[in-house]
Structure formats: structure tokens, C-alpha cells
């Protein structure tokens, strides 16, 4: 099992390295201007040169993304539990949430600056929370609801009350749905934090670093920040997958063919 997992990293790693080499070659051979597309090697050297600043910026942006993600997930799960319990709320809330989720919530970032202050982190956090909340709420609510009718009948045949049905059936049933939403929400939280930083908040962040470097036409520096942002996104995505594996041991087990 372990070896199989490790082996699956091989092909994408090879493709990635080949891609970087090709990128370097294409930029060199066709003499593409560094302004349009810097070489991976110059992005790498900027990464080393600006490491102190970049590390600080990534840490600060990461804190916004993670704190916003946690609050958004918590609110989404809580509301899903509440709407599951009260049908009236569910009928009113769920279609609305699905509609809002289809809108570009991130476009609200400048508005949030007016509401929560342009210099503080609160407005950036609010953007992350708003972006994370909807997919988590919608998917978790779906998982709590979509239980096979026979399974509910079975619990009724044991004279189980709604609370026991929630604990024994609905919550575990919603876990795969919740895990899917977490896979979506974790990288989204990084995107939301950075886009929010484009519009306001403290100045020592990944988002502001990208806009200011680009403003001074230092595109290789901007790219080095983008590399850090990608790393942050991958890290959160990876944590979401590890959480999923740990919370649902029954999903990794293989099939017995008979």
C-alpha cells in the first residue's frame, strides 16, 4: 500500500521536471522577454534572494487562509446541522445558498474593505470565510440529507429518535460529502486570501507582494511569490486529503472479489 502511494508520485514528478526543463529551453531558444515569461532559473534565484520577505509574507497570508478556512468550515457545518434539524430553515436557506455559491463571492473583496476596514486583516479573513462557507454548507447539508430511506426506516424500527439517527446515520453519511467540500475549500481559501490582499489589508502579504512587484515590472519577483502561494495551496489541499483518510478508514479498504 505504502509503496503504491509513493510510486504514484513518480509520473507527475517526471512530467513536472520535464515541463520545467522545456520551459527554460523555450524561453532561452525563442528569446522570450523576461517581462512576458521569466525563466524558471531566474524565478528560482529571486526565490532565494527574497526568501526572508517571502517566508514572512507566506506565513502571514497562510494564517489568514487557515483561520478563515477553519471559521468558514465551522460555520458551514453548524448551519448544515441546524438546517437539517429544522425543515423550514432548510427549505428557505439551501436554495439561496446554492444560488449565492454560483456567484463570484470573491468580487465582494473591495466591499468587505468598506465594511471591515481596509488596513486590518478582518476584511481579508471575511472574504476567505465567505468563500469557504458556501461549498462546505451545501455539501455537508446534502450529506446529512441524502440517506437511503430504508436506513431511516431501519432506525425507526429500533425506535431510535432523531438525535440518535443524526449521530449514527446522518453525520457519518455526510463525512464523504464534507471531505469533498474540504478538498474544494482548502485551496479556495488561499486564492481568496491572496485576491483579498490585492484590494487591501496589511502590506506585507503574498497578495500585496505580487501586485507591488508587478507594478515595478519585476515579474520574476512576482513569479517567486506565485510559487510560494502555490506551495501554500498544495499544503492545505494535502492536509485536507490527510484529514479525509484519517477520518474515514473504511474508505481505503480494498474489495473482496467473491
Amino acid at each position: 500500500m505504502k509503496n503504491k502511494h509513493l510510486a504514484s508520485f513518480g509520473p507527475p514528478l517526471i512530467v513536472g521536471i520535464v515541463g520545467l526543463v522545456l520551459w527554460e529551453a523555450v524561453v532561452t531558444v525563442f528569446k522570450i522577454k523576461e517581462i512576458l515569461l521569466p525563466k524558471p532559473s531566474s524565478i528560482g534565484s529571486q526565490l532565494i534572494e527574497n526568501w526572508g520577505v517571502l517566508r514572512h509574507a507566506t506565513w502571514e497570508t497562510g494564517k489568514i487562509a487557515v483561520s478563515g478556512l477553519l471559521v468558514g468550515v465551522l460555520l458551514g457545518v453548524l448551519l448544515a446541522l441546524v438546517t437539517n434539524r429544522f425543515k423550514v430553515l432548510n427549505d428557505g436557506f439551501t436554495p439561496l445558498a446554492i444560488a449565492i455559491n454560483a456567484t463570484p463571492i470573491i468580487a465582494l473583496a473591495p466591499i468587505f474593505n468598506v465594511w471591515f476596514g481596509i488596513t486590518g486583516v478582518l476584511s481579508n479573513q471575511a472574504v476567505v470565510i465567505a468563500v469557504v462557507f458556501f461549498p462546505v454548507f451545501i455539501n455537508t447539508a446534502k450529506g446529512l440529507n441524502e440517506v437511503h430511506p430504508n436506513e431511516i426506516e431501519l432506525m425507526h424500527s429500533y425506535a431510535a429518535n432523531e438525535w440518535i439517527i443524526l449521530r449514527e446515520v446522518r453525520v457519518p453519511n455526510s463525512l464523504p460529502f464534507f471531505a469533498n467540500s474540504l478538498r474544494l475549500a482548502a485551496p479556495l481559501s488561499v486564492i481568496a486570501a491572496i485576491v483579498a490582499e490585492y484590494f487591501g489589508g496589511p502590506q506585507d502579504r503574498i497578495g500585496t507582494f505580487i501586485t507591488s512587484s508587478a507594478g515595478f515590472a519585476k515579474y520574476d519577483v512576482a513569479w517567486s511569490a506565485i510559487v510560494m502561494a502555490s506551495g501554500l495551496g498544495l499544503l492545505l489541499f494535502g492536509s485536507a486529503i490527510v484529514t479525509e483518510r484519517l477520518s474515514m478508514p473504511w474508505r481505503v479498504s480494498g474489495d473482496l472479489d467473491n
Partner: protein
Amino acid sequence: MSKKSLESAISIIKADKVFNMGRNDEVQALSRIDLDIKAGDFITLIGPSGCGKSTLLRLVADLLTPTAGEIKVFGQTANQARRDQSYGMVFQHAGLFDWRNVSENIELPLELKGWSKADRQVRSQEMLKLVRLEEFGDHFPSQLSGGMQQRVSIARALSFEPRLLLMDEPFGALDEMTREHMQLELLRIWRQTGTTVVFVTHSIPEAAFLSSRVVVLSARPGRVHSEIVVNLADRTDETREDPEFFRVTTEVREALRAVEE
């Protein structure tokens, strides 16, 4: 072979079931059902689709409430019987919980009854033996075949030793060979436990092979059309070629033709 006993397991008197009463889509599912089932009987309910056989089973289980009439289970109201967990239920959809392994699935009703962990483990081990899955306690349901899952579902229904087993087309999703094997297994378990069984099916041979009595229902609204007593001695694979078996399947088939018209 059928255990004749005077005790009544289920008595249904003039039961009606109307869905969506008073609305445009009002449907009378069952009309004036009278049925008496003795303890230890194996009864199958058969009828055209939409005849309300599953509805009737749910009335006995108190998962639905009759619009009129009276249903008694071991002398109690259906509601009281459900609260006392007097019956175990098996559906076509095995309804095992993915997140519990086989033993934990079987122990679920015992857990809800507040049994200690040690007692639960002893019982689930006995049940696994009963359905011949001793080796599979630690497996997750997704690792089992359809027939094995359905056996776990039966083990779960019998874990708390209910006097009544209600089965809603439990073998409907299985292939023919597995199905015939499961029928033999079920009869063995029935003999071993002495449980009263009410079994809903739309398969004529299944009804004839399993039951001590076949109840044929007519459709819309569902009524009891006829009851056919089965006099088969020992039931083995050879029984499926027995003249009595043919007599019963023919009689059930003719009754079903009559109600379809």
C-alpha cells in the same frame, strides 16, 4: 415441519391505508385487509406491483399508520411492538452502514438497547456463525458480495432475538443462484430460531418454496384475494422439482392472473 401454534403473532382486522387523504393525488393503497398470522408461521405476501404488499408490511412494522382498522403484534398495538423491538426488519437494500465493520453493524441494535460491549461481541459472534460468516466480522460492508451483505442484514435483524422477522423483497437484487442459496439459508435459520416470518416477494417460486402460507393480494386498492397453504415436507433443492411445489406455483400463478384482470 411448520410449527403449529395457537398463539397469534399478527392479527390485522379491516385495515385500510389511504395516502394523501383529501388531496388530488389521494391513493387507496389497502382496503379492508383481514389477516391472521400464527406464531412460527412463514407467510409470504405476493401480488402485482403497486398492490401495497410493502405498505402492508410497513403497517405491521408501525413505520406507517393505518387509516382505519386494527393491527396487533403479539397482542400489543403495532406501535407498542415497535417500541419493544418485537421485530427485526430486512430490506432489499441491505442498508449496512459503510462506516461500521460487519460485527459493529450486527451490534448496532444491541448498542441502542444499551448492551455491554462484551455481551454484544458474544452475540455478534453467534450471529455470524448463524449466517456462516464467522471469518468476516472485521470486514467492512463494501468488501462483501451482495449475498453476504444480505446475510449480515439478516444477522443484524435477528441479533436481539425478535419473535418476528419482517422482510421486504430481501433477495430481489440477488442473482438467481445466490437467491436460491439464500432461500435455503433463510429456511435453515427459520427452523433454528423458530421466528415468525412475513416475507414480501414478487417471485412465485420464491413464495412457494419458502412459505407455509402464500397470501395473494390484488392491486389498487390492495385486498387479500386468496390464501394458499403449502404442504411441503422437507425443503431442499430437490423440492423445486416436487409435484406439490408445482401445484403451489400453478395455483399462485392462476391467482395472480385473476387479480391482474
